């Protein structure tokens, strides 16, 4: 260790002695920081990503890699704003139902082929082709692309999808309805281009390092399942001159504490998430490295709104009392301790362009909420909705230490404040999903993460037809408002109203808005702390030499 450091120091001294011109090349062109000789970034993956096929991917871990290997029409900057990717720009016409993208003529695949509009057409048709059977094919339904739904259902041919290459550098997309955020949706993997010749030559093996042809800033050079993968700078990338990072390594480390030890031993530059509850201690120990940033997910307890559910669940006073009695500050600051926000509404407070609605119970104190809860509860008891001898609630959650801690704390709050007896049951993940889907619960732990940085990605969940509305909440006003919001110039008006209805009906009990806690080596610069979707692109990273 010391030997290497000494050698490195000697090398630096030598470089200085040789002349300043050689040294100047090692400065960051914009910030002037001294760049490290080895531009290598190593991060931890919690689990092995299932696939690197952009059209098949449905996971965040895979998306982090795919975003480096491939580039879509549009991309994101450090603040999450839309910037040109393969496309230099786009034009909307036909009342926002047609988008025409112009592609840059310098974009190339890693084998030197030009990236053309046909590559996007091929990829998108592939994503909806029933033979591909992409679990994320519904993303194209979400974009409202013409015929996407019919093709997925096997009713139309993939060639009938609402996208066409006008010429090599012009791509025209037709949508069923005006969708102002369609260009933003092209930053997701499903809509990345694909290299037809490679896929046809290798079949499912095309994503193996030796076969893959990609168009992003990096190429895949090594992959061993459950161990590691590496990606290295792609010299064919159109903007390769501005990419400083040479190599990125992802290590799969399941155990959070083991990962933390290895971070401290210098084997990792980035570690996320941190072991539960350790953020405050790490912030004290490594203040320049421990960070908490918003993550676009909301944690809530779903009430069972089915007709055959317990009758007291259909009484809004009971649901409201249960929600009011939850002291969210205790959960956030005593249990989770990772910079999360107490939640009184569904959509994450950091969602782009989302005006936080005015939810009355979010501004009063917990003792006032408790008093109100007791009042509502007593009224429900007086009306015979809740039996006088008390209530037993079945609360289900999937097996996890933090879900258990939250459920235990909440059940104590309900017992002390409302005299409710809570039966906690936990299940292994897939079993849990099935039980929740079948409605075998009174209250179910739930969480929802946005697919894209827009409030509808949260609020659509509470509409009647939504596939993951496991509490089966159904409200005509909410459905109508969400339909209306799709074509609205300022959908915030509808969103605010929807949140208001959700509050009045207490459709769910929101608990907290997520934060991501992580450790980042101080030598790594360019991290997009303000990108609320946590979409990081390694091409923006660089490693510096810190002045001691």
């Amino acid at each position: 260790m010391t030997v290497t450091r000494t050698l490195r120091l000697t090398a630096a001294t030598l470089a200085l002695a040789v002349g300043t011109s050689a040294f100047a090349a090692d400065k960051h062109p914009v910030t002037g920081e001294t760049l490290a000789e080895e531009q290598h970034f190593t991060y931890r993956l919690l689990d092995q990503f299932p696939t690197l096929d952009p059209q098949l991917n449905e996971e965040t871990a895979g998306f982090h890699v795919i975003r480096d290997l491939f580039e879509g029409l549009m991309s994101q900057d450090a603040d999450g704003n839309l910037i040109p990717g393969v496309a230099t720009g786009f034009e909307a016409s036909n009342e926002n139902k047609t988008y025409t993208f112009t592609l840059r003529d310098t974009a190339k695949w890693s084998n030197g082929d030009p990236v053309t509009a046909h590559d996007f057409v091929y990829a998108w048709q592939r994503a909806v082709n029933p033979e591909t059977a992409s679990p994320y094919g519904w993303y194209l339904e979400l974009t409202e692309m013409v015929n996407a739904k019919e093709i997925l259902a096997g009713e139309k041919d993939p060639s009938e999808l609402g996208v066409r290459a006008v010429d090599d550098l012009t791509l025209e997309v037709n949508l069923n309805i005006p969708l102002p955020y369609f260009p933003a949706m092209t930053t997701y993997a499903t809509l990345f281009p694909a290299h037809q010749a490679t896929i046809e030559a290798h079949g499912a093996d095309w994503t193996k390092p030796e076969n893959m042809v990609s168009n992003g800033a990096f190429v895949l050079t090594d992959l061993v399942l459950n161990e590691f993968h590496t990606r290295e700078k792609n010299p064919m990338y159109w903007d390769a001159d501005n990419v400083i990072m040479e190599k990125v390594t992802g290590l799969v480390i399941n155990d959070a504490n083991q990962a933390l030890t290895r971070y401290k031993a210098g084997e990792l530059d980035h570690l996320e998430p941190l072991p539960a509850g350790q953020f405050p201690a790490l912030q004290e120990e490594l203040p320049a490295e421990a960070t908490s940033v918003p993550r676009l997910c909301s944690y809530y307890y779903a009430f069972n709104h089915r007709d055959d559910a317990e009758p007291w669940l259909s009484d809004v006073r009971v649901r409201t009392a249960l929600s009011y009695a939850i002291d969210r500050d205790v959960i956030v600051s005593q249990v989770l301790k990772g910079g999360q926000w107490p939640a009184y509404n569904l959509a994450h407070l950091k969602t782009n362009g989302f005006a936080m609605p005015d939810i009355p119970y979010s501004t009063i104190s917990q003792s006032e909420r408790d008093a109100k809860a007791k009042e509502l509860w007593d009224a429900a008891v007086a009306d015979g909705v809740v039996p006088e001898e008390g209530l037993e609630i079945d609360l289900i959650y999937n097996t996890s230490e933090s879900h258990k801690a939250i459920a235990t704390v909440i059940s104590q709050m309900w017992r002390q404040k409302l005299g409710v007896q809570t039966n906690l049951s936990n299940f292994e993940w897939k079993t849990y999903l099935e039980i929740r889907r079948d409605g075998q619960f009174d209250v179910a732990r739930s969480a929802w993460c946005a697919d894209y940085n827009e409030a509808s990605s949260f609020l659509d969940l509470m509409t009647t037809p939504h596939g993951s509305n496991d509490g089966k909440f159904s409200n005509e006003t909410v459905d109508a408002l969400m339909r209306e919001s799709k074509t609205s110039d300022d959908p915030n008006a509808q969103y605010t109203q929807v949140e208001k209805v959700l509050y009045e009906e207490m459709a769910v009990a929101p608990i907290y808005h997520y934060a991501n806690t992580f450790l980042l080596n101080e030598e790594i610069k360019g991290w997009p702390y303000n990108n609320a979707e946590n979409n990081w692109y390694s091409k923006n990273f660089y490693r510096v030499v810190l002045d001691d």
Partner: protein
Amino acid sequence: MLSFIIRRLFIAIPTILILIVFSFCLMYAAPGGPFTTERNVPPEILANLEAKYGLDQPFFVQIWRYVVGIVTQFDFGPSFIYTDQTVNDIIAQGFPVTLTYGFWSFVVAVIVGVSLGAMAAVYHNSWLDYLAVGISVGAQVLPNFVMAPILVLIFTLWLGWLPGGGWQGGQWQYVLMPVIALSTSFMASIARIMRASMLEVLGEPFIRTARAKGLPMRRVILGHAMMPSLLPVISYLGPAFVGMITGSVVIDLYFSTGGIGQFFVNSALNRDYPVIMGITILTGALTVLFNLVVDILYAWIDPQIRYR
């Protein structure tokens, strides 16, 4: 002897077939499926997925196709979760890793365990005995999920001698800690069994005879007492060896080795049916094989069994 081996191999085939059918049924009985996710996939997409993997077929058709695929083409099917991989890919990648650290753990456990146990028995009730018993009890109560983080803490964080995980094709620096973590508890069990059986053998009349003939202690131990003392150890080693080479999820989890153990557990949690089946069959076949090896070894060591 040959007919004995052939007969045993013949029994192995129906054993594995029963294993396949039984695991297949159990797997289907588990709630949820490979495509059950937080986000309910729309029915048309679920239908496409099920059609792609043949899950839309009746149960008997599925199991028949599966068995036929294995028997005729040695094809264990694609992974439902790692869509870029087949089960054969996964086993081909993970099994050599597990085999490597399992084999070395076995070698270490046997050599250290047998020596420790024998030493304790020979120097019965001396400080050497107490030391050996102390070590084996200590190793026994330290399960590998405690050992693994401690090892990484010491050798990676404090001393900086070894990498904290990974495999890198099986370079020794990466193999060392998994082997230590996996072998300790096996080593402790072997030492205890060896000590007890050696003590028993040392009290036998034929040892007294050997001593009475004036043979040096070394020859009495190695020439006469060792072989019979090993019998109970060997019956333990068969299943222990299979246990070691078919993977330890703890080792894979803590050291990110990419071994088969983690795939096995993950496949069950993910309901990745073909991977569950593939690894179950592999484990089953190895268990049958090594039980046979143990029986043959037994016959070789113990003439009473051979001539029976």
